[in-house]
């Protein structure tokens, strides 16, 4: 068929008579200029496009007549008009495509077809998923980012050069003890706030975002989503939620923000709750793994217990929260080699966002820690919470770790790490403390994003649940381990 013939045929396209009649009648009622043809406006109106409806409503005095035409046309069909119109249009598209497109089998596609298949079938897909998590998250982000890079930047650059230099500067130039503590020393804005941002957050979050961008760009994420959809349905989420949930292992704050992409409010609330409760962020994970790695059994108990809490609380939340059940559908793109340009762009823009949004919160956290210490409020809180620690079978010193855990998630874990090194905590206590700390309140940055995204009422409700629940879970775990006669 020649090009002209084809064009003629395309132009001849008409919807069925009932639709065409409605289009003509609406066109007659459209007096103002819309930048697109009146026919297009009429079609959009028939398909119930909200945006165009508002525009037409504000410009045309004859809008009631137009509404009447649409209403009458709707009555003629049993299906919604947008469906009818799309189906008729698609039919024409198929007709054209079938005349001009030839499909042939391409042998080069065999490998990619094979890869496409083995990543979505459960028997091969789940081992591949575990490999991706192991190498992508554990090896690259956990060991390389949170280990090698953090050790170098924090242990070498900050501890050896920047902190001593800043400390000596303030000692020489600032006479006021309180101001000195605000800027430098153990908890200062520069020596703690900035060090935290540059030496811990930057390498961990940087490696995480890099890995996440690679996985995202390769088209793997939708496969992950379809593999976990059934599991996620039981906790009131759909497979799509795997994206914020995986991000949570990098940074729960960012993940909470990303949970806005979930479709229903019910899903967003469940995701926010689970992120705050049972997904440890990479900073926290790094310290806990370091602390428990010497005792594989303790690490296993910790991981299992947290996973159980995740499933159990998700399941209960799904039963309790009202709202529609989640549905899952997603296009599965073919697997592709990630493009370097895309990866760099995504990683850089995410890190940029991270620094602009989150780092100020860490600076504020430094200031709050400073105020808390200067005014003696922290000492009071620590004293009050000591009996709580005793109930969990933990030494009173752990209270401080829990308090600071709110300001930086990993700081609490780091506090435990110190206690363990000094021999204050035994294996059982370490396990109980790690579990409680993982479940316990989100860090201050996550808390502020929760407020912004979910509102005050929901956030307070979530925190009011998490706080007692974390300690209750620790209490129960302590009883179980004691009853089992575990002595690590």
């Amino acid at each position, binding site marked *: 068929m020649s090009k002209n013939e084809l064009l003629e045929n395309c132009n001849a396209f008409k919807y069925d008579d009932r639709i065409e009649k409605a289009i003509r009648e609406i066109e007659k009622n459209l007096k103002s200029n819309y930048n697109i043809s009146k026919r297009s406006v009429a079609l959009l109106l028939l398909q119930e496009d909200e945006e165009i409806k508002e525009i037409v409503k504000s410009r045309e005095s004859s809008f009631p007549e137009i509404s009447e035409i649409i209403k009458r046309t709707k009555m003629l069909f049993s*299906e*919604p008009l*947008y*469906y009818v119109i*799309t*189906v008729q249009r*698609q*039919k024409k598209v*198929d007709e054209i495509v079938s005349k001009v497109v030839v499909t042939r089998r391409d042998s080069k596609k065999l490998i990619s077809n094979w890869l*496409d298949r083995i990543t*979505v*079938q*459960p028997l091969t897909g789940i081992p591949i998923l575990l490999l991706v998590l192991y190498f992508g998250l554990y090896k690259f982000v956990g060991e390389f980012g949170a280990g090698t890079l953090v050790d170098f930047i924090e242990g070498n650059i900050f501890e050896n050069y920047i902190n001593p230099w800043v400390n000596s500067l303030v000692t020489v130039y600032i006479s006021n003890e309180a101001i000195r503590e605000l800027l430098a020393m153990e908890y200062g804005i520069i020596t703690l706030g900035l060090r935290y941002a540059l030496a811990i957050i930057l390498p961990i979050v940087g490696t995480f975002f890099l890995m996440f961008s690679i996985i995202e760009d390769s088209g793997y994420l*939708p496969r992950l*989503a*379809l*593999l*976990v*959809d*059934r599991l996620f*349905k039981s906790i009131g989420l*759909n*497979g799509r939620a795997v994206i914020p949930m995986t991000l949570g292992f990098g940074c729960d704050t960012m993940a909470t923000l990303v949970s806005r992409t979930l479709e229903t409010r019910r899903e967003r609330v469940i995701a926010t709750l689970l992120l705050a409760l049972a997904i440890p962020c990479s900073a926290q994970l790094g310290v806990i793994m370091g602390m428990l790695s010497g005792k594989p059994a303790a690490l296993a108990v910790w991981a299992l217990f947290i996973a159980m809490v995740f499933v159990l609380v998700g399941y209960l939340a799904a039963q309790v929260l009202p709202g529609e*059940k989640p*549905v*899952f*559908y*997603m*296009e*599965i*793109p*073919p697997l592709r080699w990630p493009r370097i340009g895309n990866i760099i762009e995504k990683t850089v823009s995410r890190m940029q966002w991270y620094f602009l949004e989150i780092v100020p919160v860490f600076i504020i956290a430094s200031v709050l820690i400073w105020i808390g210490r200067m005014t003696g409020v922290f000492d009071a809180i620590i004293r009050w919470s000591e009996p709580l620690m005793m109930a969990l079978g933990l030494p009173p010193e752990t209270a401080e770790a829990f308090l600071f855990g709110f300001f930086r998630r990993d700081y609490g874990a780091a506090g435990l790490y110190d206690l363990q090194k000094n021999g204050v905590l035994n294996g059982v206590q370490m396990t109980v403390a790690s579990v409680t700390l993982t479940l316990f309140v989100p860090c201050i940055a996550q808390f502020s994003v929760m407020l912004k995204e979910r509102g005050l009422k929901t956030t307070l409700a979530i925190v009011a649940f998490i706080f007692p629940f974390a300690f209750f879970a620790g209490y129960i775990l302590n009883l179980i381990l004691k009853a089992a006669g575990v002595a690590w």
Partner: protein
Amino acid sequence: MNGERNLTELKVGDDATIARIDSADDKILKKLMALGVLPGMKVVLLQKFPSYVIKVGNTRIAADEAIARSIIVVKK
């Protein structure tokens, strides 16, 4: 109608033609249409577990059971 069944009643590897979308939920209907799941399109069922995977035209789509049930097909 004769020969109509929903997607969950097909066997893996079967191909069929989409007859209609039977969903009370407006949002699902619109999303499926946007993905190109439309009457008259050929569909191949690629897998059923853990999620349904179908091929419509050149697009592969994952869907849960509820969505798969709402896609009514006619087998050849």
